[in-house]
Each structure stands twice: as C-alpha cells, then as structure tokens.
C-alpha cells in the first residue's frame, strides 16, 4: 500500500510537474541564483547538492515562493505561476496559498506546532484547506501515522518526541496535504547521528512509492542510492546535472569533484589543503 495517499493525484499534464526557467534571485546586490533552469517529472526524486551558501535553500524557497525570484518563470502542474509586486494583495495571497497547498515543504528544524498534538498537527492544514470531512481527514492522518509506526503517539505533544520522530511527523504532516511535489531542505541536518537513519529510510520509502520530490541534502550516499537525478549547484548555477550515479560517481566539473572529495572524506580536508569550493 503506498504511503502517500495519491502520489501524483490528479496531475493534469503528462509533462513535467515543475519547470523552472532561468530563475534569478538577488538579495540586494548579491545574486544568489544566476539563471537556474530545471524540470521535474512526476514521480521523480531529485537531489540537490552543493557547498554551503551556493543557493540550494534559496532555490527550494523560490519553488513555493517563500522567496520571490527577481526574474524567471515557474511552471507548476501545467500552469504558469504568477508572482511579483504588481499583483493585487488578495490575489497574491490566494496564489501563494493555492500553490503551497500543492507544494509540500519540510525544514531542517522540524517546526511542529508545540501547542497541538501530533494528530492535530497533521490534520490542521487539510481541515483548513477543506480537503474532506473531519472524519476522513483524521482517518487518513491515522493511516499515515500507522505507516511510520507512530499511531500510539498521536495524542502526544511534539515536545515528548525524539528529533527523528518529530521530523517524520513533519514529513507526513506535509504529505497529509497530498502535495504534488515535496521539498525537503536538509531535513536530517539537525538530528543526532543515530536518528538520521529512520528519517532517510522514510524518504527512501516515499521515493520508491513515487512521491515527487526535491531533496537538498548533504548525505551523498542517500542522493546516490535514492534519487533518480542529482543536481550540483555552485554559486547559484547548476554546474552538474544527470543521473545520480553519474553526477556523484564521475562529475565533470572541477568544483563538483572537489566538493565531493570534501564531503566524502571530511578528515582529508586539512591534509589535502582543500580550499572552500
């Protein structure tokens, strides 16, 4: 039984679910994204790797318009997403809300809401979005909880859970909205090492079940084993793109080679005198 209730539920096009064209983003004078283009097909899982500050998070945040691109086009589920300051306030709010209901995002710090129980955390957004009757939504949430083995914790408050448990709840909280794409930004970076595995396992399971996702990660082995494709970002530009085995096994660009050497053998960093990539 698939973990995601409807992996590509109701996608209206056969083409890419997400298409970014020449996305640029400036923070003041600093250009963080310098023309990024990218297409993600339904069911695909894509890893994004790159050095700190290369613009990975900014790229993800442009997809759900947490950051407004300076220029470029976002095509999602067959429609062009309007953004920009010239939009009328309420229209803009509605566009953002509608987009985010279909684009799930999970963060490094799990950000569960401490005043709600695990179950309440999961059902809140589907209830607000009117995705179904309360009983149905609760039923689905409980199903999701069962699948990650946390049904018994449904009435606990997040503060009573381990980091790994909280992050897995955060992931199924996003899934409860039945998103057409899931954005994961270094979701294991804040976890104690012994808790990383359970979260990666869940993501791997979702990928296998055909959940479309964009995963920013520092876990190279995970990118290699789980994602269909990997993208290497360097200073706001996609420098490498292709099947994960190729990009990670035999990257063409010098920067990617150095980056991989550094993250795969962090202890060699000093000895080899590798400078910042």
């Amino acid at each position, binding site marked *: 039984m698939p973990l995601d209730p409807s992996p590509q539920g109701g996608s209206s096009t056969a083409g890419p679910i997400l298409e970014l064209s020449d996305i640029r983003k400036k923070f003041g004078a600093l250009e963080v994204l310098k023309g990024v283009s990218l297409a993600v097909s339904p069911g695909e899982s894509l890893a994004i790797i790159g050095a700190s500050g290369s613009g990975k998070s900014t790229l993800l945040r442009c997809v*759900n318009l*947490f950051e407004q691109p300076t220029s470029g086009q976002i095509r999602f589920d067959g429609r062009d997403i309007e953004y920009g300051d010239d939009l009328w306030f309420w229209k803009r*709010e509605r566009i*953002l*809300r*509608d987009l*985010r*209901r*279909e684009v*799930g*995002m999970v*963060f490094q*710090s799990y*950000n*569960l*809401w*401490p*005043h709600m129980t695990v179950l309440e955390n999961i059902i*809140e*957004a589907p209830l*607000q*979005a009117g995705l179904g009757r309360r009983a149905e939504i609760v039923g689905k949430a409980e199903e999701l909880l069962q699948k990650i083995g946390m049904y018994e914790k449904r009435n606990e*408050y*997040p*503060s009573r859970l381990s980091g790994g448990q909280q992050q897995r709840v*955060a992931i199924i*909280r*996003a899934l409860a*909205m039945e998103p057409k794409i899931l954005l994961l930004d270094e979701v294991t970076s804040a976890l104690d090492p012994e808790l990383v595995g359970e979260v990666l396992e869940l993501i791997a399971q979702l990928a296998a079940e055909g959940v479309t996702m964009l995963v920013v990660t520092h876990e190279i082995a995970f990118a290699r084993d789980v994602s269909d494709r990997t993208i290497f970002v360097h200073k706001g530009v996609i420098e490498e793109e292709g099947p994960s085995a190729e990009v990670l096994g035999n990257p063409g660009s010098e920067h990617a080679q150095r980056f991989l050497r550094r993250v795969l053998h962090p202890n060699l960093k000093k000895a080899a005198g590798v400078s910042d990539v």
Partner: protein
Amino acid sequence: MFDVIQDWWVVVLPYVPLLLEAALFVLQITVCVVLLSWVVGLVVALCRASGVKLLEWPARFFIWFIRGTPALVQIFIIYFGLPQFGIKMSPFVAGTLALALNGGSYVAEIIRGGLIGIPNGQRESALALGLSRATAMRRVILPQVVRVIIPPISNEIASSLKNTSLLSTITLMELTLQTEVIVASTFRPFEFYIFTALIYLLMTTTCIYGLQIMERRFAVRY
C-alpha cells in the same frame, strides 16, 4: 492596639456597604476596560507587526503617544477635550474609552513581545502547508503567544484596575471618589483611605493570582 482597631471598625462599618458597592463598580469598569484594551492591543500589535508601513506607522505613533503622556491627561482630552468637536460622552464611556486606549498600548507591546518570541519557523511551516497568513496567525502563532503573555497581562489588568481611580476626577462615583465623599463628611481620612486601599489590594491580588492559576492549568498541556 485592639482599641484602635475597634474604634476603626466603629467608624468604617456603617459605610462598608457603600464602599463595597463602589468596589463592585470598579470591577465593572475594569472588565469593560480590559476587554476593550485587548481588542485595541491586538489590533495595534498586528498592525505593528504587519510589515505594512501604512498600518505600522499609525500603530507606532499611537504607542509612542500613549506611553509618553500621563493617563490623566488622556482622560481629560477625551472627557473635556472632545466635546469641543461635538463628541460628548458620559463620564463612564469617556473614562472607559480613555483607560482602554491607555491599556491597549501596553497590551500591544506585550503581544508584540510575545510575537517576537515565536520562532519564525512556526509561521513558515504554517504558510508552507498552505495556511493563509490570517489562519497561521490565528491557529498557530497566537495560541503560543497567549501562553507566554499571561503573566505580563495579569499585571496589566491590575494596572487597569488601579487606574480606574483616576476616573474620580471626571465625577465617576467609583471607589476613590466614594471614599473622598465619605471622608469629607466624617473627617476620618486615615481610616477610610486605608480601608479603601485594602479593598484595592484584595482585588488586584485576586486578579493576579487568579490568572497565575489559569496559566498553570494551561501550562500542563505541553
């Protein structure tokens, strides 16, 4: 010592019903003031935090003006000043309004402090799930703010209660003015003002501890 207290009671006792009635009136005014000041405070705090200049600046100005001027002057502006523009209110309405605006500016700052204390990730995760900004505020942010602001808010309620004594200056027969009137005919200021002080003390203490107990009941939830 015993004699003094007995004498005191003999003096005060006949006036106790009158004073308690005035105290009840104080509570009524306080309830009105507090409820209204929460509305004012919430609106001003949300404007202040909205990031919209057109809302933010009036809110800032309001807080700056109210906190920088004496409550008594604010009361006089509303009760004596506004009638010049045809806005005439009863002492009760004018007084309640003035104290609510005054309290509202303090409540606004308390709420703002609470808002700042909520990590940004809480808001972002709500928006990321497709909650509108208003829903995120109502369902995710404010419930967390409420918990941290209960202690300062209970102090603010006590302040509002004490501030009602300022309304004695605009002929509102609340506890302070009632005491003044009694003193004028009995010539026993010490006994009566001490007794009145004790009534105020009882009311403020009850309200502060009552809210603390409420807070503890909230706190066991998470």
